[in-house]
């Protein structure tokens, strides 16, 4: 048996690289005996890394993660999901009511409300950046849970939101909301999620960490080839969907789930390379919003020794 590892995961397509690496034996090949720990939300996952309940995980850069890094408990060691011009990425949504009242593109955001889960979440960052780019003032509504946000959006109580493509398309397809733009148009090369681990792992378990990243990258490559670049052919794509279905939407039939999985496919960075420009921008934004201490720098958060920094 190899080194025992706990990998934190959410049941989202964006975590597919880990699932692929596990199912296809890439972890085993690196001598890693991986067990998944599933979470309902990203925030507790970050805390679990700090507490040592999980060793590696993938999540968006949030205020909580930065705060834990500042306490010397977590480190970002690589990049995962990225926005990339030309690839179907996160969408900007408007509620039907707002759409009818004129919110037909992100240009009309001024004076509108924007749903976020919590202050300092990626939704907050995107909304803030997009509205700033359009010179609009928006009010942010913290609603904690994606479910609550969807409810609020459907009933027209918030005007706009941004979300990963498969949820956006499913909602828009049902006629409940309207898609009014792409996040990638405002935040090209946005480093949506990162790979991170405890500071201890990053500093003292270099071999294990590198092995994890190698296996993870191989999984990412398979995923990109099958569903993002679609260079591996239809059969490989179908097989990939089937693999991911074991983890995501497992309680829905494959036909239904498959569509969502395909819709949700976004680029996972090759070799876990990290877009430093985007990370720096995000940290600066946190500081400007006074969500984190001014003394925090990119170095507090990132251990650059593992992956290529773009």
């Amino acid at each position, binding site marked *: 048996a190899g080194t025992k590892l706990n990998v934190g995961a959410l049941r989202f397509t964006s975590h597919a690289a880990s699932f692929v690496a596990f199912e296809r034996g890439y972890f085993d090949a690196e001598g890693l005996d991986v067990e998944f*720990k*599933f*979470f*309902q*939300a990203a*925030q*507790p996952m970050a*805390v*679990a890394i*700090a*507490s*040592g*309940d*999980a060793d590696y995980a993938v999540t968006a850069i949030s205020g*909580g993660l930065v705060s834990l890094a500042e306490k010397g408990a977590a480190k970002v060691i690589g990049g995962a999901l990225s926005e990339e011009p030309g690839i179907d990425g996160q969408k900007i949504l408007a509620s039907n009511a707002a759409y009818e009242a004129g919110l037909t593109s992100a240009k009309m955001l001024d004076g509108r409300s924007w749903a976020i889960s919590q202050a300092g979440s990626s939704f907050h960052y995107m909304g803030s950046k997009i509205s700033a780019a359009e010179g609009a003032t928006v009010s942010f509504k913290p609603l904690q*849970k*994606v*479910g*609550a946000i*969807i*409810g609020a959006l*459907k*009933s027209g109580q918030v005007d706009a939101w941004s979300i990963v493509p498969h949820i956006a398309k499913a909602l828009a397809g049902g006629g409940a909301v309207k898609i009014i733009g792409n996040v990638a148009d405002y935040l090209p090369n946005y480093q949506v999620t990162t790979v991170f681990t405890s500071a201890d792992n990053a500093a003292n378990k270099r071999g294990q960490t590198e092995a994890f990243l190698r296996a993870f990258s191989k999984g990412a490559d398979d995923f990109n080839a099958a569903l993002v670049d679609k260079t591996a052919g239809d059969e490989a794509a179908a097989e990939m969907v089937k693999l991911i279905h074991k983890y995501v939407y497992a309680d829905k039939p494959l036909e239904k789930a498959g569509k969502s999985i395909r819709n949700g496919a976004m680029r996972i960075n090759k070799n876990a390379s990290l877009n430093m420009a985007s990370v720096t921008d995000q940290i600066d934004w946190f500081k400007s919003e006074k969500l984190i201490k001014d003394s925090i720098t990119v170095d507090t958060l990132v251990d650059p020794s593992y992956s290529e920094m773009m």
Partner: protein
Amino acid sequence: MSENMHPNNARPVPFRGGGFRPVAKRGAAIIVFTTLILLAEWGTRTGWITNLTLPRPSDVATTLIDLWRSGLLWTHLSVSLSRLVVGGTIGITAGIGVGMMIGLFSYVRAGLIPVVAALFPIPKIALLPLFVIWFGIDEASKYALIALGTFTPTIVSTYGAVDNVDRTLVRMGQSFGLSWWSIVRKIVLPGALPGILSGLRVSVAIGIILLVAAEMLGAEYGIGAYILQAGSLYDLERLFAGVLILSVLGITTSWIIGLLEKRLLNWRG
């Protein structure tokens, strides 16, 4: 008829008593529940209630049946129950112990009552991030959350019950020269039992409510996790199915405590 037997001015004393003693009429509850459910069914079918507002009761029933058929109901229920039992047992046992101490010793009382008063209004969900650090993300943190939630109300009801034990019984024990420990065991404890048991109802209800909070922390199975997942997908049928299960769980435990009271407190008649 009596008019013939008595002078004209004889009349029965008017009745003016009765009332102010509501008696539970069996069956009324069934009618209320049925009416509510039929109303919801009718409303959702006619579209008078949108499917965003309320799920169709029949759909909730179907969801429940599917859940049961798939066997997942037992998976969810068994893990939730074991969390409730372990966490609740820890919290309630500790609560009864501390409550007894507060009820018996001046210094413990003086030192701990304010601490308990300060702990009571703290919402346990606010402490979730800390619980991860303190107890990890596995069962320990769920047990701890439920234990903490049941701990404080049990303390309060226990020392209240001890305070209410008839002091003449205690004086009686002393007057017969019973030892301190005998008095605690044979007089104070059984005398406090009714109060402790009725406090248990509240504690267990709080435990059930906290299941949802506890299962916010890395739980894959469990009624709370099921509800949370349904909520995050805005899947109303499953949300209501889960809530219904919790509600039934609450009524069942309260009924079990009622049975326990009947058995243990049969001396109350």
